[in-house]
């Protein structure tokens, strides 16, 4: 049997006192699409960084075609044929497609002038090779995220053609774009390129992967078939059965807090890729955790942001009521007045002031309350901060360090605690555990359940199906901006997925 295209044996990597990889074996065959799954912090990114030459392993070795290689920088990995596409695509939005494809490797005319026509011609040829009709003269800024992803792939393949490593390439894509990307990946694999596909979206695995490696706590938890049952994958990912992660459901729900009846959000101006809520009917009652399920682009985030007034400009039609009274939710101010709080899915981008201290972040939504007569009251601020630290086990227990220095899980606790300080009656959560390690997930679930028990209503959107099923009392499934099905918590994952995809279970 010939040596695999790429293999890693016994890889160990420390960062300071933290062991990110504890002896990892991994291999990739030519023409194979190999899915690499793992929770955040499991070591996927570290492994990827070893393969792409960003870091060198402390122990263990990397082989290509059975020959040992060492990379001291990404350029050497590229020279060995390994191309990596990171989540933040390294494209320059203000340049056109051809300029991006040839960035740093420009074709020149004699005399030191750029040969733009030649680059455009060559770019067109390469794009057509994967049957993608993008005008090379278009600005990257004008392309959809899916198109950018493909441009990044073409660019990566232009300088390294044997191994393609893709870090969560579908994270920001619409359903149609994901399909097209998968087509392109299959075509590439058919030409003998080995593809490492990093993801935490279990539902995509059977569709695209030939083999699956699951990582947990810096080790390989298992290598399985892509058609292994989801429960098996989840057990490998989480390391314990699902039910221990989630708290007991509450028994009773109170009166209706939020009620939407045939509610649609009419945009002031049309916007592609923003799935406005369309003819939605749903309820959230006191003490209840209601989940929003749906595939990418189904309009989960859009519903939450339209309710909170942070989405695109527009207005609600149909019946939108809080506490049985019709309300106009058209601005953040209106939503907050109605007792609604919102935690974004993007805590670093729009949830936190990363460079500012934890304490300052915590009181951000209650500044008015802790500044009587416009003067900040250090005493009230300290009380509020103490309350937050008491409710959420934020570590380290120090409100003076900058919040950017905290782990993802603790940052998420700060964002949640911040909104809870405002005593909301209805909490809108978008991907409340994205980028959060499993331990902190369990704490957050327990906290949310306890808050619900005190009468808070929670509407939570998540792309992690097990989370919705384990945490929520009810799950509302959205498709193309409208509610298409509703299930009780604990429902079978396939049933929800089928409804989300518009198929019979």
């Amino acid at each position, binding site marked *: 049997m010939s040596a695999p295209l790429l293999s890693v044996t016994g890889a160990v990597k420390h*960062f*300071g*006192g*933290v062991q*990110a990889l504890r002896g990892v074996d991994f291999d990739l065959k030519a023409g194979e699409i190999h899915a690499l799954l793992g929770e*955040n*912090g499991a*070591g996927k*990114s*570290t492994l*990827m*960084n070893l393969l792409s030459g*960003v*870091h060198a392993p402390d122990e263990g070795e990397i082989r290509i075609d059975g020959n040992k290689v060492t990379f001291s920088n990404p350029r050497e990995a590229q020279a060995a044929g390994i191309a990596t596409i*990171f989540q*933040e695509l390294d494209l320059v939005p203000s340049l056109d497609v051809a300029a991006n494809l040839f960035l740093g490797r420009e074709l020149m005319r004699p005399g030191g002038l750029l040969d733009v026509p030649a680059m455009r011609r060559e770019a067109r040829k390469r794009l057509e090779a994967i049957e993608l009709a993008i005008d090379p003269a278009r600005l990257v800024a004008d392309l959809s995220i899916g198109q950018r992803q493909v441009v990044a792939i073409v660019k990566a393949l232009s300088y390294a053609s044997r191994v393609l490593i893709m*870090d969560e390439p579908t994270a920001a894509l619409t359903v149609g774009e994901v399909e097209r990307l998968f087509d392109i990946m299959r075509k590439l694999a058919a030409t003998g390129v080995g593809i490492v596909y990093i993801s935490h979206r279990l539902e995509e695995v059977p569709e695209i992967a030939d083999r699956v490696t699951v990582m947990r706590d810096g080790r390989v938890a298992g290598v399985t078939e892509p058609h292994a049952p989801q429960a098996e994958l989840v057990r490998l990912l989480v390391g314990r059965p699902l039910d221990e992660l989630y708290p007991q459901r509450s028994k009773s729900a109170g009166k209706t807090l939020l009620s939407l009846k045939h509610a649609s959000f009419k945009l002031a101006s049309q916007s592609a890729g923003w799935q406005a809520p369309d003819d939605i009917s749903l309820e959230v009652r006191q003490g209840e955790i209601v989940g929003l399920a749906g595939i990418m682009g189904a309009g989960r985030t859009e519903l939450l942001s339209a309710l*909170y007034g*942070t989405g695109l400009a527009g207005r609600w039609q149909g019946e939108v009521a809080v506490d049985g009274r019709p309300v106009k939710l058209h601005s*953040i*101010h209106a939503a*907050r007045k109605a007792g609604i709080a*919102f935690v*974004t899915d993007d805590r670093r*981008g*729009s*949830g*936190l*002031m*990363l*460079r*500012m201290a934890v304490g*300052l972040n915590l009181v*951000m*939504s209650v*500044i*008015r309350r802790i*500044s009587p007569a*416009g*003067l*900040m009251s250090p005493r009230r601020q300290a009380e509020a901060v103490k309350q937050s630290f008491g409710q959420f086990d934020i*570590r*380290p227990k*120090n409100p*003076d*360090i*900058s919040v*950017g*220095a*905290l*782990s*993802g*899980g*603790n940052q998420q606790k700060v964002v949640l605690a*911040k909104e809870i300080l405002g005593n909301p009656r209805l909490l809108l959560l978008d991907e409340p555990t994205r*980028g959060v*390690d499993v*331990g*902190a997930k369990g704490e957050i679930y327990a906290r949310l359940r306890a808050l619900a028990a005190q009468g808070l209503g929670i509407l939570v959107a998540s792309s992690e199906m097990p989370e919705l099923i384990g945490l929520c009392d009810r799950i509302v499934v959205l498709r193309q901006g409208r509610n298409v099905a509703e299930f009780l918590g604990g429902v079978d994952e396939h049933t929800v997925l089928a409804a989300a995809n518009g198929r019979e279970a």
Partner: protein
Amino acid sequence: MSGEKIEVAANPVVPSAPKRRVDPLAIVVRFQSLIGLVLVAIGGVIFSPRRHGEILFLNPDNIANIVRAVSETGIIAIGMTFVIITAGIDLSVGAVLGLSSVVTASMMISGGFGLIPTILAVLVMGIVFGVVQGTISTRFRLEPFIVTLAGLQAARGLALIVSGNQYINISYGDGPGLAPPVFAVLGERLFDNTVPVATIVFIIFAAIATIVLNTTRFGRYVYAVGGNERAARISGVPVSMVKISVYAITGFASALAGIVHAGQFNFGSANDGMGYELTAIAAVVIGGTSLFGGAGSMVGTVAGTIMLGALANILQLNNITPATQLLATAAIIVLAAVLQSLVRRREGLGR
């Protein structure tokens, strides 16, 4: 790529963050302008020319000169600190100073207005100027750099129109065409002829600004808007109002500096205050305020302002050419910026 950092941070067992608190470099940056001021002062004493054994740098007249010379740019830098903490910039300040000096002089001399109405009118004019700039910037989502660059041109143009491109001399006395003699106090010194009045204005304004920035709700909002505008908006902070307000503050500060300018030099001139915006920005940056917004201190700005003045003074005392002075200033600005960048990178928050 930040993947590796997330991996490290994601381990909840080893909270290593508290160690960062005592990062000596962070402390140096926090007090960099104060440290710089002390260093410059020590250098001033060492390198000062002496006459009959007296250190000229420490001569009370010399020190009064330093703090008087920096008071106008200092007042502007204080306003600028608010703007820069919100991650904005105001290039119009020097031009508004010129405009304000002209309006102050012409209102009193040719307009026949009294002292109080003149001062109030000029301050209101400065505020309005800032509000207009802030409103245009937020309403049309324009970069403050562009809006205030236009504001600079507009203010100079207005100043030339009002003055007819002439110096407007201020003569004192009672009656039409003369300014109230009390206005001349801005060019004098109080307390046994030691402390310049212009400096007193600077200090009082700095004290008020420090209190506003550090202890009021508005001050917290200013930090929040610069720290993360979207997060601030989602938290219910009135972001546009805050942004407009900080430009109103720079407008007010520039007008105040313009009044002080007219009082110190007894004339209004449309072309005065040129380049003050850059001196003020330099003082703010040396003071440790980040051009990225969200971080900064008023004390730092004051120290940075005085440090620049003291540096210029010691170089002048040693008959060092203005060209060399500019080079020294350049080196200090770069040094301050590099220090800040190092700290940002250590905190893993490089941008």
